[in-house]
């Protein structure tokens, strides 16, 4: 376990600017906040989704709904992961039918989490479109998936790990690259 950071890739200021930029991009692409809902993937995606929602509301003046999604039930690799104890609660208490649903995650890597998240969303309804916003895209896709909104493209080697820390859970806003198991 543990994580040895080799370099800090993003500081708190950078992350704040990224959240602001992606908020504008979301509004531009979807022509305003009407019909937009954000769904964060547990754990850090949820906090990023809330930040985006807050920023969008500051810009447009309308509140945006934020859901929380745990994709454990939909993963294709449960056999190699922890059991029931690792599962968080999914909370999408609004209608996603015909909405523009934006999935928010911290790191886009193999694409398997995103695939699982899309499957999960389909069980809640039939969105008009699903888009994907990520803070970091580190490459190495194993599925035909790409993000619509990317905070930072971060070319990595397969044995490197990316660690995203957010104030809400980790007490600090950073993105670091390094080696270890305690990151993706």
């Amino acid at each position, binding site marked *: 376990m543990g994580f040895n950071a080799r370099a800090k890739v993003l500081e708190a200021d950078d992350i704040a600017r990224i959240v602001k930029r992606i908020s504008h991009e979301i509004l531009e692409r979807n022509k305003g906040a009407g019909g937009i809902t954000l769904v964060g993937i547990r754990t850090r995606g949820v906090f990023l989704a809330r930040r985006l929602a807050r920023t969008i509301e500051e810009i447009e003046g309308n509140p945006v709904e934020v859901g929380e999604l745990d994709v454990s039930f939909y993963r294709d690799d449960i056999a190699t992961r922890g059991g029931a104890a690792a599962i968080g609660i999914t909370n999408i208490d609004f209608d996603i039918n015909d909405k523009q649903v934006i999935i928010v995650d911290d790191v886009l890597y193999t694409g398997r989490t995103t695939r699982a998240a899309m499957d999960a969303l389909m069980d*809640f309804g039939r969105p008009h479109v699903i888009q994907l916003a990520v803070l970091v895209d580190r490459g190495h896709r194993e599925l035909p998936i790409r993000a619509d909104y990317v905070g930072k493209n971060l070319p990595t080697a397969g044995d490197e790990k990316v660690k995203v820390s957010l104030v809400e859970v980790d007490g600090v806003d950073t993105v670091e690259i390094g080696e270890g198991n305690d990151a993706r």
Partner: protein
Amino acid sequence: MPGKSNGHKHLLSITDLDEADIMKYLDSARSFAEVSSRPVKKVPALRGRTIVNLFMEASTRTRMSFEVAAKRLSADVMNFQTSTSSLSKGESLKDTGKTIVAMGVDAVVIRCASAGAPHLLTDWVDASVINAGDGMHEHPTQALLDLFTIRERLGGLRGLKVAIVGDIDHSRVARSNIHALNKVGAEVMLVAPRSLLPDQVERMGVTVTGSLDEALTWCDVLYLLRIQMERVNESRFPSLREYTLQYGLTQTRWSRLKRKPLVMHPGPMNRGVEIASGVADEVESVITGQVSAGVAVRMAVLYDILGGSRD
């Protein structure tokens, strides 16, 4: 990775679990409860796994609860009932178990009149075994769902006072609950005539009283056991009328209480025996809550046992 599987291949008795295991099941059951509230009540978590319900004793709710839990996780479920099976032709449990598992089954959920049969089955078959009640021994998922219900309603378990009323000696529900409540730091009082208590019951870490009224003023949770009608004619059982007068939650007792405890019952209730019909109506939401909790807890158990890596 935060939170690993409990690491058990089987669930045979509460005594095999420690407090942390129990709490993990209760925590994860909350996530599974959410699945049952969705428009599409199904997730693909156990797709491709096969579970057999091997029920050698009459049971509707436990069997259905396990079946619903498995189906919501997308596992395939087969039901095996003795009346329609080779067991009634005299096939042994060992041969039946081996036959079932030879079909490529991942888990066997077993209900059996003989205490210890689930343990024996683990020696004979390669699949996971989940005890759904064995004789007068244990009924572990019932205790987990009861603890889940108590925690959801009262916010915690440690330090709570739980009174269990009824035929303790014959009750696997009572046994599993006593062990589980002790492990999570709740206090347990048993309310029953001496003839319906096991020998040396105090060794189980409980207090005992013959007075329901004493228990009612003491407890936060009143757990009424079902009176098994087939036992009423045994010599150590009081008459039904006498039982109701002394150990039944009658309307008079209930109305007299200023501070009402959480009333629970594993079902099915004998209205007018262990609980008055009017009281039963009043506390029904808790008892149906236990049924919903049963599905969530069994999903958590199946997922933990079948979802984690094993080899």
